[in-house]
């Protein structure tokens, strides 16, 4: 009895009992498809978050107002992050990191009837580089723009689309709080991240933001404030040192002792990445557990079908033994049959799970990713489940004397 012959018998048994085979496969298909799809969503979310954080720029450190204490809410005097803080930080760590301040605020950004839903951000020339944006067309904000408080604007890819709907925005005018600005540049799209809308961007010179758009709103006790300061360390190893220097500088600037809470947050991208990866790792584990349960449910489905057909199959095994089939050959034949069904069901399940993941991706919900480990794992589990539930009843039947198996009720 060669394996090919065995495979032929198995195929005949499978095709002769299409309903039974179909139901058996169905259990595996549902289990495997659930595992593949759920894990694809989990892993896709994880890598999407990771990519978006990494996309913010490598070695990024952000300083923002609103630290660990809630002085503003507590009604204490608001401590704002000042433009002078930026200058002090630049003086301290300017050699080890690119430093860029920005002021972001709400403003109406229009091109006729069209509106961009972005916040307006006043920036210096190196803002785009520190935040790892690149230029698609035109030019960036320059020092000259800041000196002259020019009414120029650089748009993110989505904002350009919002305002111009495919037309080339370069050289055209948009209205910011009713004032005309001319578009000088458009940024390259960073892609969707699932975390922030990175391409919703309306950048103007920082000085223009202070003097032309926001005015007193951007000032605290007569001094220009900033929403945040971004630093990009030249060397990843220096991130911690730079952060310490930044904190030290901020304490000095605001006359705070070491024991007082810093009213600003100084955080690095790697800290953020770590906590986000942690969260999405938990998410993936949770989804994996749900998927495992579906596979178990699929296994129980297979078991039910096997139990329902065990009477007929026991008689079949009895008959095969009666006509002279050795026990080993019968078991090998059932093994082949179950393996064929499990693998077939497994492959179908992977394809369907993949299809669901693809559907989720193309519906724009979340960018999923199907990993080969998950595919191999779920195929393996499907096979094991199929084998256990398929072979065990066959083993029991084949251990009976033919006459007992034939009389089996």
């Amino acid at each position: 009895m060669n394996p090919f012959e065995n495979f032929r018998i198995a195929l005949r048994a499978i095709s002769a009992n299409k309903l039974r085979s179909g139901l058996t496969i169905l259990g595996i298909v549902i289990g495997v498809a659930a595992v593949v799809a759920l894990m694809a969503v989990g892993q896709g979310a994880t890598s999407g978050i990771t990519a978006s954080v990494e996309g913010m720029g490598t070695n990024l450190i952000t300083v923002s107002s609103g630290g660990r204490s809630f002085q503003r809410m507590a009604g204490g005097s608001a401590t704002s992050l000042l433009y002078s803080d930026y200058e002090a930080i630049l003086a301290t760590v300017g050699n080890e990191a690119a430093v860029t301040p920005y002021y972001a605020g709400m403003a109406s950004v229009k091109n006729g009837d069209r509106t961009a839903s972005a916040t307006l951000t006043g920036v210096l020339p190196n803002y785009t580089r520190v935040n790892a944006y690149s230029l698609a067309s035109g030019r960036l904000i320059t020092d000259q723009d800041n000196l002259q408080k020019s009414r120029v604007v650089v748009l993110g890819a989505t904002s350009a689309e919002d305002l111009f709907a495919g037309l080339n925005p370069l050289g055209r005018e948009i209205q910011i709080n009713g004032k005309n600005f001319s578009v000088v540049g458009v940024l390259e799209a960073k892609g969707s991240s699932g975390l922030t809308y990175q391409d919703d961007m309306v950048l103007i010179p920082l000085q223009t933001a202070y003097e032309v758009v926001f005015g007193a709103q951007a000032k605290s006790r007569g001094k220009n404030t900033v929403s945040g300061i971004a630093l990009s360390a030249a060397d990843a190893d220096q991130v911690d040192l730079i952060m310490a220097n930044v904190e030290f500088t901020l304490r000095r600037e605001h006359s705070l002792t070491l024991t007082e809470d810093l009213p600003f947050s100084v955080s690095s991208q790697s800290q953020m990445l770590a906590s986000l990866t942690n969260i999405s790792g938990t998410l993936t584990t949770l989804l994996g557990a749900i998927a495992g349960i579906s596979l178990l449910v699929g296994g129980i489905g297979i078991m039910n079908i096997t139990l329902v057909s065990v009477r007929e199959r026991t008689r079949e095994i009895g008959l095969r033994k009666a006509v002279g089939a050795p026990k080993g050959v019968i078991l090998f034949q059932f093994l082949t049959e179950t393996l064929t069904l499990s693998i077939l069901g497994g492959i179908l399940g992977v394809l369907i799970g993949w299809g669901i993941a693809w559907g989720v991706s193309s519906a724009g919900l979340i960018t999923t990713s199907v990993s080969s480990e998950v595919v191999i794992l779920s195929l393996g589990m499907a096979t094991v489940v199929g084998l256990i539930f398929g072979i065990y009843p066959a083993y029991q039947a084949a251990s009976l004397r033919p006459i007992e198996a034939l009389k089996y009720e």
Partner: protein
Amino acid sequence: MIETENISKTYRLGDTKVRALRKVNLRVEDGEMLAIVGPSGSGKSTLLAILGCLDVPTKGVYRIDGQEVMRMNERQLAAIRRKKIGFVFQQFNLLPRTSALENVMLPLYYSGVSHRARQAKAMEALERVGLAERAKSHPNQLSGGEQQRVAIARALVNEPAILLADEPTGNLDTHKGAEIVAIFQKLNREEGQTVIYVTHDPFIARHTRRIVSIQDGRIVRDEPVEHPLAAGTPRSDDILGESLSTTVEEDEEAGS
């Protein structure tokens, strides 16, 4: 040649024991055709299953061509069932959703015969039972008599030394039953096939050359048939009456 020496079979159902066979001695030469008769529950099926190596006796010795069956392992037993025995069941036991031809091919899968040869042999066996033209039909498309003929073809396909049939006509009407008996007679007369069948019907039994009667697990009588009936002989009260009356007479003799 098969031979049993004091074989007994006891079933245990909880505390009660059912003694289905008690010290049965039976010897059947090659080329014989015989019927095993007896009332329901007398142990006929039990004996036949043991003869067909589908079951094992609790005690005693069973030899096929001098080989002791009880001493064989699983693999050797399978080989015996495959090579020496063809078994026909009262319930036909055909695989559902599987064609007649494939059902007949089943024993050949385990005999190392090539696919082509399997088909040819199975076709030939179907021809021997007169069913070649129904090769593609599935069991549910065949009448009871046809299903039993497929089962006989399956039993014949490995050219076994012994053909065993447990109430092969039990589920069939008189006419279909006669067809089955005719096939057995033809196999025995023309090919020298050893045929043993179980029946509770004395008329069917009289188509063989030897009748073994069992009661309560014992062989109570073992006698030749002077004039075996030809298949198709009408079932007349005379014949039946004659055979029944002899049975009664001899039973009384044995009892006295």
